[in-house]
């Protein structure tokens, strides 16, 4: 029995004429302690998939099993890093994290909770901004608060929806290592949504592409056979790395081409030009 299991998942938004089936026939198994990355184009349904797993959404058809039990609603065992940060704007950085820590460890004394908050805020490098409100932070800083909030709850499984998208390469590298560190320490399970193939290869055991929607399904998985701890500079010379990377990119380019050709068949642009533009040639 897998740790997390998605069985024939279908997800439709809307009903009757407006219904669009975003996800079709999704099957996925993640073992305990595994690190799985899902790559996909924008709008293909990655966030939808994440919300099905963390319990914010229910599948239209199919089953999500977590440790053998069907997922009903959210749980502290599955921590989420939201794509859009979802910080509460009336709370400071510290208060946003504190709220999560307090819910996760209701029995701990306040002093200990504050220490945890300080730890995680420090980990994402935001100690100087701990008393600031989200509005006063840059997009990348907000994203880091969101990371700190999710990890501070010490969830068994970490679900990350493009958690590092807004960061520069350097900060991104640091946080990737922090996440790997936390994942590796007590052998937690991780699901990472990303649009960066290199990030997926550096962090994950397996990469699974999500084909473009509607009716998005998972593509064939790519195993990353590179020993941990991985080193970014050494990895470049690893023949395994090059082979896997090329295979994934080729696959993604293929489905990208497919999508483009489909699109050009579907949409015939009307023969229109702005008036002024046409008049120029008269």
């Amino acid at each position, binding site marked *: 029995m897998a740790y997390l299991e998605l069985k024939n998942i279908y997800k439709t938004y809307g009903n009757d004429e407006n219904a669009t089936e975003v996800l079709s026939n999704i099957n996925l198994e993640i073992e305990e302690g595994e690190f799985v990355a899902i790559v996909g184009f924008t709008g293909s349904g990655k966030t939808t998939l994440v919300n099905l797993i963390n319990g914010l959404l229910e599948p239209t058809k199919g089953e999500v099993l977590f440790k053998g039990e069907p997922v009903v609603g959210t749980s502290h065992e599955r*921590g989420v890093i*939201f794509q859009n940060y*979802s910080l509460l704007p009336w709370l400071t950085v510290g208060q946003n994290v504190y709220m999560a820590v307090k819910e996760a460890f209701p029995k701990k004394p306040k002093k200990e909770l504050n220490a945890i908050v300080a730890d995680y805020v420090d980990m994402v490098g935001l100690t100087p901004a701990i008393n600031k409100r989200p509005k006063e932070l840059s997009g990348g800083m907000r994203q880091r608060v969101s990371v700190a909030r999710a990890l501070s709850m010490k969830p068994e499984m970490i679900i990350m929806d493009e958690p590092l998208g807004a960061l520069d390469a350097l900060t991104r590298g640091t946080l990737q290592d922090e996440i790997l560190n936390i994942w590796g320490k007590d052998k937690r399970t991780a699901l990472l949504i990303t649009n960066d193939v290199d990030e997926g290869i550096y962090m994950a055991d397996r990469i699974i592409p999500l084909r473009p929607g509607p009716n998005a399904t998972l593509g064939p998985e790519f195993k990353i056979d590179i020993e941990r701890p991985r080193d970014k500079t050494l990895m470049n010379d690893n023949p395994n790395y090059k082979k896997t990377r090329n295979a994934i990119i080729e696959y993604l380019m293929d489905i990208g081409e497919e999508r483009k050709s489909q699109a050009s068949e579907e949409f015939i642009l009307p023969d229109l030009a702005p008036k002024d533009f046409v008049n120029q040639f008269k």
Partner: protein
Amino acid sequence: MKQSLTLGKVTKFMGLGFLSSFKDLFTGKLEKEDYKAFLRKVIVPIASVLLFIGLWHLGAKSLYNVEAEFRIEKALNEQGQAAADEMAACIASGDISCQPNTLPSPSQVWASFQSLLKDHALISADKAAFIEKTAALNEKRVAEGKDAIVYTGRPSFVDQIFRSLKTVFAGFFLALLIAVPLGIFIGLSPTLKSAFNWFIQIFKPVSPVVWYLLVFMIVKTLLIDSSEDSSFSISFIAVGLCSMWATLVNTSMGVSSVDKDYINVAKVLKLGNFQKVFKVVLPSSLPLIFTGLKITLSVAWMVLIAIELLAQSPGLGLFVWEEFQNGANDSNAKIIVAMFVIGIIGFLLDRLMLAIQNWVSFEKTDAI
């Protein structure tokens, strides 16, 4: 979070930011490009006020002339040339008995304003003297278990203002106590929403006069045994009921339209219902609740005048009505004074709400 409170900050907070331009002017801190802003923010408003007073003066003068000519004409037609000459002389002499009764000029209004202040000083002195005189007697009466003698003289204009403020705040708090909790419940529960929707839609547009009559019917019966004057209770309850709708609608809208992201956070953190309401739903709807409260306070102040007048409850509304009935030669000027006082207090109340709103909420709202 510590903030030093400087004059600039306070004025900005209150939406009175233009005052700081004055300070800069006197401290010589104006830069070249600031002059344009200074011109726009200070000179233009002052110029427009002067223009307004000028137009008012001219308008009042021409109305005065129309009325004066009419009186002379009438005297001529009814009583002949001698009476007309007498009337013209009387008007020119400024005799009170024959002054045209029309829109007062700015200077007349200013004079009335000063006489109202003088009147207040007189009444206050009278009251203080009365209290001093009866102090010993009252002590004795209280010791004997009798009621103390209270001052029952005529209230001054300033007393009326405070009386009105008391009524409006009582009404405002009544509205707040009813509308905010009810709005929260309606916003949280779609069932309650459909239960109350017809009620809100039907009663929201009802006029203040009708609310007054309704409250009068009920309160009169409820207080049937008591000999106390119920006009204050009736007027503040009516004010509250008229003005609470904006808060009710805004609160329920704010509560029911909390950003889905915040709700998702509450779900992922597994906040309990109580926590969810107090830590997520309420803070996020605070800006809308305050917008509602701001409207409520300004509506309360606006309907107060009409309701005081109907309820014969002392205050600015009754003052205006009595002056109108009174028809003394400076009554019109006093009514205009009251108009300005009502307007200025309304403006200040609005700024007060804005300051409180900026203080409690995370989204800063600029003064309009």
